Structure formats: C-alpha cells, structure tokens
C-alpha cells in the first residue's frame, strides 16, 4: 500500500480532487450562468462572474499538474490513455480554450453590447463540454474496454460512447454544478443567498440520484468495476460519500453554510476516492496495474521529493490567494 507508485498515485488523486473541487466550481459558474433563473438571475450571473475571475487560472493548473504527474510517474499508462482517448481529450481541450478565452475576453476586453451575450453563451457551453469530456475520459479507464497486451494498447474506435462513460460525463457536470452554489452561499447575503442555497440543494439531489443510478449501469456495462465498487473497500467509500452528501443537504437546509461547504467538498472528494478505491491497484482496470505502468524508482522518488518541496511553496500561496479574494465576489469591493 505504501509503495512509491501508490504514493505517486495518491498525488494524482489529490490533484484530481483539487481540480474537481476548485476547478469544478469554476466550471459550475459557467453552468449556472446558463441555468440562472428567477428575479435575481442577473445578480447571480454577476456574482458568479466576479467570483471566478481571480482564481480560475490557478484552479486550472491542477489539470496540468495531473497530466504532468501521469506522464512523469506513469508514462506507459499516460501513453495508453492519450492514444485511445484522443477524441474526448480533444473535446476537453476545445472546451478549456473557449471557456478561458471567452472569460478573459469578457473580463479584460472591451467587449460591449452584442458581444457580451455571445461570450457568455460560449463560456456556458464550454463549461458544460469540458467536464463532460473529462468525465468520459476518467470513467473510460474503468470501463474495462481498454485492453493492454504485450506493451500495446487497444480499444475499439468509439468504445468510450456507452451508457457507463456517458453517465460519467453527466456526473462530472453535476459535480461542477453542485459545488458552485454551495460555495456562493458563503459569499452572498439575503435573497441571493437563498437562491444559491436552493440551487445547491437541488444540485445535491440531482448528483445523488445520478451517482446512485451509475451503479446499476456499471453492473451492466463495466462489471469488473461494479464488483470492485461493491466490495468492502469500494462500498466503504460509497457509504461515506452518500452520508457526507446527505449531511451537506441537511446543513444547507439548516443554513449552516460554512459546514455545508466543507461537507459538499468532502462529498466530491469521497466520490472520487470511491472511484479510485475501486480502480486500485490498476490504472486501466483489469489490464494495467499501477506498478506495471509506473516509472522506475529513481524517477518516483525524485518526483515525490519535488512535490514535497512544492507543497511548502504552494500551500501558503494558495491560502493567501483564497483569503484575499474571500467574501464579496467583486474584488473591487472589500471582502
């Protein structure tokens, strides 16, 4: 369990959880920009827009961190994944580019009048496309349809288009849409806070239903993954995630917003950890283990050393960033 490759996998996992929680909330901002309704829809959109500004680039770096960790620590697995999952990964890139560009063009540009609705809709569509494509990519590794034999990777051309992976894409969208309103309850007041609270509870219910529904879909499409998910190790995290998700809903209902934010983030982290627990010790389920995909020991220990140094730089910097831009979403107004 404490082998070097397991520690490196833990780094990948932490990077994924951070990307899902922080980057996910930014994509959720785009999703709720499209979904905002009611008398305060305009204020909701404005708050979401302001909240994303200072943090989205930092949060986006987690994705690069995950990709780099994969090719450093698990080069064979990285090569296999990026060979067979070319199409969803290209779709994710297209989404990432248009999301980033649309946001930056609106924030820093001189966009006026007719350009803003266009940029906003580009931003919203791209915020749906990216998590969908990345969700497909992640669940595809659990589908059992990527084959590894004699150092070669094989998969049918459109193997990633099936109920199990498409549901994975939809769940990734739901994760993003779930976190944003919960985070925003801490950064708004009055009626607007009530709007975000309701959105958070609604999204929490949707996420719960979708993840529960994925289990029977997995039984049909990805039996090995389903069996491992329902083994004691997987089931432990499934139960924890469900419990945490329920707690987040109750806390929102009781207006305990700080606790709800922690519970909501915990739900997402535990959901991903359940996925990872069912995958362990494989990178491609049933085909390629972490140990087989891993880089030599010298690389793994050097990489973990770099991470250790990096943490001492990263943690205080992140703390300073989130502390400076807490509270009131518009950075031109004090927190």
């Amino acid at each position, binding site marked *: 369990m404490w082998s070097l490759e397991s520690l490196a996998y833990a780094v990948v996992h932490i990077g994924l959880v951070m990307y899902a929680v922080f980057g996910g909330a930014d994509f959720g901002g785009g999703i709720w920009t499209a979904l905002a309704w009611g008398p305060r829809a305009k204020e909701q959109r404005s708050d979401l827009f302001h909240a994303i500004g200072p943090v989205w680039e930092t949060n*986006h770096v987690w994705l690069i961190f995950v990709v780099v960790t994969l090719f450093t620590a698990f080069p064979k697995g990285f090569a296999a994944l990026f060979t067979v999952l070319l199409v969803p990964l290209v779709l994710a*890139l297209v989404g990432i580019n248009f999301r980033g560009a649309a946001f930056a063009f609106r924030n820093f540009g001189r966009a006026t009048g007719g350009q803003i609705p266009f940029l906003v809709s580009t931003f919203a569509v791209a915020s749906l496309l990216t998590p969908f494509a990345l969700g497909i990519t992640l669940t595809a590794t659990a589908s059992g349809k990527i084959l590894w034999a004699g150092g070669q990777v094989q998969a049918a051309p459109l193997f990633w288009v099936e109920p199990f992976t498409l549901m994975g894409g939809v769940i990734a969208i739901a994760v993003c849409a779930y976190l944003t309103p919960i985070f925003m309850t801490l950064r708004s007041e009055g009626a607007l806070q009530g709007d975000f609270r309701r959105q958070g509870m609604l999204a929490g219910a949707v996420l719960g239903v979708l993840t529960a529904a994925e289990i029977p879909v997995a039984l049909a499409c990805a039996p090995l993954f389903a069996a491992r998910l329902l083994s004691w190790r997987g089931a432990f995290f499934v139960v924890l995630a469900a419990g945490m998700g329920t707690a987040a809903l109750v806390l929102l209902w009781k207006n305990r917003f700080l606790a709800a934010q922690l519970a909501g983030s915990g739900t997402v982290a535990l959901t991903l950890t359940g996925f990872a627990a069912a995958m362990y010790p494989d990178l491609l389920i049933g085909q390629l283990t972490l140990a087989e995909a891993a880089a030599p020991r010298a690389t793994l220990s050097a990489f973990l050393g770099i991470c250790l140094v990096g943490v001492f730089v990263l943690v205080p910097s992140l703390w*300073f960033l989130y502390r400076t831009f807490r509270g009131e979403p518009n950075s031109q107004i004090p927190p």
Partner: protein
Amino acid sequence: MDQVLSARALMGISLGFHIIYATIGVGLPLLLMLAEGVSLARGDDGYHDLARSWVRPAGLLFAIGAVSGTILSFELGLLWPRFMALSGPLIGLPFSMEGFAFFVEAIFLALYSYGEKRLSRRVLFLCTIPLSVAAAASAVFVISANAWMNTPAGFSVINGALAELHPFEAFANPAWAHEAVHATLAAYVATGFAVAGVYAAALLRGEASAVATRGLTLSLAVATVALPLMLVSGDWSAKTLAVQQKPKLAAMEALFRSERGAPLFLGGWPDPATRQVRYAVRIPKGLSVLLSGDPDALVEGLDAFPAGTTPDPRLVHPFFDLMVASFFIMMGPALWFWWLFWRRPEAAWGTWTLRALLLASPFGLIALESGWLVTEFGRQPWVARGMMRVTQGVTAQTGIAPVLFTFLVLYLVLTAGLLKLLLPAAKGKGADATPGGPHVES
C-alpha cells in the same frame, strides 16, 4: 495528409502560437516588478499607473498562454505517446517543477491584477517578485526538457530499455545551461521591444502621455540591457554546439563539407544537391575563427555524419540568419535612441527615432521564433537525439489530420479575438484605445 507530418505540423503550430504568450508571460512580470519597484523607491505614482495599465493586456495574454499551454501538455500524449512513454520518467521532472512554478505565477498574477482594492501598494509590489521569479523559473525548467531532447542524459540503455536512471543528471543535461540562459534573455528582449513598440506607436499617433514615455524608456531599458547578453550567450551556445551537437551547427552555418579554415556564410540558400550555398556572402575562414579563434581550425560539416542522421540545412540556415539579423535590426534603433536620450533628450522622442523603434519592435519575437525553429529543425530527424527518431515517437492513433484542422481553426479564432481586443479601435475610440486604458471590470 501523412500521419507524422500532421503530428509535426500540429505540434509546431501549437508551440509557435504558445511561445508568443509564454515569452510575454516571462517578460511582462519583470517589467511589472521594475515599474512597481521604481514607483515605490522614487515615490513616483506615474510608474504605478504604468504597471496598472498593463493589467488588462496581461490578463488577456496570460489566459491565452494558460490554455494554449494546456493544449501542449495534452499534445505530448495525443501526438507523441511513444516518445513520452520512453522519456516521461526523465523529462517529466522539469515539467513537474514547471507545474509548481505555474501555480505561483497564476496565484501572484491574480493577486496583483485583482488585488488593488484589497492589498496595500507595498504588498502589490511584493507580489510581483514571486511572479517574476516563478515566470523565469518556469522557462528555465521547461527548457531543460527541450535541452534533453537535444542532448539526452541521465540513463543507460540495457537491452533496448532505459536503465539506471539519474533524473537530476537528465535535468541538468549538457545543453540545458546555454539554452536556458539564451532563451530566458530572449524573452526579456522580445517583450521589451514589443512593449516599446506599442508606446512608440501611441506617441506617433500623437497620444503623448506620462505613461507612454515611462513605458517606452522602461521596456527599452530592459531590452537594451539584455540585448548584448544575447550576443554573449549566443556565442556560448554556438561554441557548445560545436562540441555537443555538431550536425545542428553544420546545418545552421550551411557547412556541407568538413574543412580546415571553414568559411562563414551570411545569408544565401543551401542547396543539398550541389552542396553549394547560393547567393551567400562568404567570409573565408570566418567560421573557424568564430568557433575557436584559430583560422585553420577543423570544423565538421554535414558530410561528417552518416546519411539520414542530419538535419536539412534549408530549414535551419535561413532561420539562423534571420535570428542573427534581428539582433542588429534591434540594436541599431536602441543605441540611437539612448545616444539621443543622453545627448539631446528632446530629440530622442522625434518622429524618426520612434519610427525606427516601431519598425524594430516585432524583431524580438521574430528572433525568438526563428531561434526556436533553428533548435527544433536542427535536431531532426531525432525526437531524442541519437535515441529515437521523430517517426518512432508518433502516435499509433489514426486521424490526426482532423485534429490538426480543429486546432488550426481554434488558433485562428483566438488570434482574431485577441487582435480585436488589443489593437487600437479603428474608429476613433481615442485615449481609451491605448494600452493605458482603464481596467475594465465587467
């Protein structure tokens, strides 16, 4: 379209696009730090206003840099999975270090850009220090990976597989030091001249302002300090290439035949069929003198290496010449400006000086792009020199051509959008259209 050609074209276009934003991402933080530092030291708010006027273009360019950099990190796997499976354990480490540098850059740029109302002037200045350091560090780290492809190190090959890995030897591979110094300085030159050109254009349009004059002097000062260092580091690079990467040097200098007293060709078109350099200015014994100081020193030409292991000089020599010529195109106007600035300050802001600076302003980026092409074309046919050919590193996945098309469209859309937002509005928007325009919040 051929699989390898599609993959190479896509990687090349992606890098060529990203390099512009990456360069400005290294250069602009230094300018920010200097402007805020001067402002605090002299109590001159003009320099603070200058730095704040860069927030909007910096935000746009950094965002495009971040997303185009993501494309590259994915393309390593999408296009070159076999190369990455081989080299990931070695070149992954500089990329990991670069990842942490990205975090620091993104965090402190956000604090600087958005923090004006929440942080003190002193803290804003302090934020530009980790920003500039991380920006330079990210360049130095990622160049280690590029240098490794030119001079692979830190491993031995046993039975066709890598063994006995020494990741930090790979990191500090032989080509790293000179590449990192040369390219990081190039980023300061390129950014300095590009920014100076923006202000020269504004002054020529008659938009004289304290921001414009301060902006021009500061950016041109940075570029002018870095420019002579480019010559020194370039000389160091060439002399190192003469030891480490002889075929690349031969292609750069269009030297087909090994000879004592090798000539230096300025310009011209190398013709592999006749092994002649047509239309070139030939300086007898020039190359031997430049490389070793001895006019009769032996320099190995392309014929010293087995056929099929050397780069095509037609793709290397012209870009090398363009890079060197760019140096002189920049040096002239810069020296002219500072000479006048010292002797007759009012004349330095004359129309012809500004026009000359405007003309020279894109050549920092032109030199940087050509220098990068020299490095990459000069490494061919290898992806990791002597270890793996480009054709061996490419993906087994078919259908790269549609991906190439997709990203071409994407880059065109991004470029069009950026130009629309950054270039001065055509229909008389007046002062708001200068780079000194206010930071638009929403």
